[in-house]
């Protein structure tokens, strides 16, 4: 029987206070009417108004969104292929190198990835812009996608795939009709992970962005370097709100999906 002791209660309370109080302070001070971020001078939403009128931030947000959608979609396709090859591909020439290249970007310092990609783009004469950021982001996030998808591929029953093949499906049809629906939740979480990684990235984007393709993190970083500003607090609050809603919604949806799947399995077992 698990019981909550005073030690556990204290460590959980302090731990979650440590995790959440900084963000709460950030949110509270985004509604501060004073320009001084640290002194409370009354409630106001004027920084949100300033933010919406700030063209530079809006442009950067648009670039970031474009990069995130394109790169996470490419990363999902490539990462799913890579996972399928790793789990189902059998032996092929250079398999060790391949698996090394999938795991290495997960632990590579961002400054090195950014620098090396930039030097590549320069040496092949590719102008830096949205395309180069998309290529860079797709490369490192496909590795995350492939880890997420391969853990699902490893755990599912291969015999259903084989049954489809026995019943006359081509390998591609078997993948589309049987494998893909089963691994779909993992593919979707892989896409979401790639999307957030891309939204979040400062270092790799700084190396691979051109002057006309400033992303939101680059813009935030350059203004934050000069010190705290209430506008950035307002922007952060909006981003935290979006993430919170997104994470809670996906977790509720996946809970529902799991419940439905279990019900279907039960009904199938009874029939």
């Amino acid at each position, binding site marked *: 029987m*698990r019981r*909550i002791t005073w*030690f*556990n*209660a204290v*460590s*959980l309370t302090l*731990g*979650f206070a*440590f*995790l*959440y109080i*900084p*963000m709460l*302070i*950030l949110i509270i001070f985004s509604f501060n009417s004073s320009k001084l*971020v*640290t*002194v409370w001078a009354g409630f106001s939403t004027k920084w949100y108004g300033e933010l919406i009128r700030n063209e530079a931030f809006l442009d950067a947000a648009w670039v970031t969104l474009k990069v995130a959608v394109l790169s996470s979609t490419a990363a999902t396709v*490539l990462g799913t*292929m*890579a996972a399928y*090859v790793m789990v189902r*591909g059998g032996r092929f020439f*250079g398999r060790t190198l*391949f698996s090394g*290249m*999938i*795991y*290495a970007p997960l*632990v590579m*310092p*961002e*400054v*090195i990835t950014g*620098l090396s*990609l930039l*030097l*590549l783009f*320069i040496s092949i004469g590719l102008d830096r812009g949205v395309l180069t950021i998309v*290529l*860079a982001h797709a*490369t490192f996030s*496909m590795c995350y996608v492939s880890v997420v998808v391969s853990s699902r591929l490893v755990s599912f029953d291969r015999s259903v795939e084989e049954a489809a093949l026995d019943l006359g499906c081509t390998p591609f049809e078997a993948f589309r009709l049987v494998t893909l629906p089963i691994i779909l939740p993992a593919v979707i979480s892989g896409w979401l992970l790639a999307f957030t990684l891309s939204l*979040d990235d*400062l*270092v790799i984007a700084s190396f691979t962005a051109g002057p006309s393709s400033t992303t939101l993190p680059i813009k935030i*970083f350059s203004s*934050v*370097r000069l*010190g*705290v500003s209430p506008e*950035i*607090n307002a922007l*952060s609050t909006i*981003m*935290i709100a979006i*993430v919170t809603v997104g*994470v809670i919604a996906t*977790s509720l949806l996946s809970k529902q999906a799991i419940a439905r799947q279990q019900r279907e399995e039960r009904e199938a077992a009874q029939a």
Partner: protein
Amino acid sequence: MNPRRTFLILIPYLWLLALFLVPFGIVFKISLSDTALAIPPYLPTLDLSTGWAGFREFLSELDFENYVWLTEDDLYWKAYLSSLQIAVFSTVLTLLVGFPIAYGMANAPDQWRPTLMMLVILPFWTSFLIRVYAWMGILSTEGFLNQFLLWTGIIAEPLTILNTNTAVYIGIVYTYLPFMILPIYATLEKLDASLLEAAEDLGCSRTSAFWLVTIPLSRPGVIAGCFLVFIPALGEFVIPSLLGGSGTLMIGKVLWEEFFSNRDWPVASAVAVVLLLLLIVPIILFQKHQEKQQEAEQ
């Protein structure tokens, strides 16, 4: 071999070769080149039109000068050593903060656990930059922490925390905490409660059962968590540049400045190669550890 399978293997393979492996080759090559006032700012550049002789000449002009330079200028030594020291120290701190939280989560009532999990994961999805930025307002001289401490009367003068190494430690512990909590929680959750009961039946006190049973059995999670914090912390750039001061030397920051401020591409590349060498040992150890864990689970 069936052509469809070859095609399926080739696409991600070639992508990673072109955008992961080849770039490293380029970094290595540039680290052997000389800095020059040209576009791109290094020499020699490979000119394929001159054929084989040109390639040989190109090779003969490469040298390890930049690496010699790194060993001679003690800025780089200091930066590597202080990155190591900051990464080790903040990993230990993260473990000390993270373990009790993971332990508390693993012992919480079953119906709380999904919520607690979500509360740990939520900050991980929130922008890294924003989480670091949040501490700038808290730690500054007129910041929230100083106001609070002055108000309680614990201190009489505001403390200088922002732009010191202390702020860097706080930043690393805060941002990497979920990476430490999750693997430890995963091992503690699987821990068989009957082992603890057995220890208590055999005369252990609860505290000594904790030290003799729980701690040794949580080792795989602790090791995984430490690697997951240590490896990215070593090459960290955002935290030292926003929370650290001019005295905070970290190799990620040095590389960035060498590249963007000094525009010295060959030296920046050499710094990157050495940082990679420094990381290869912990990365291989981590891989070995993960493989051993997977085998143990099967």
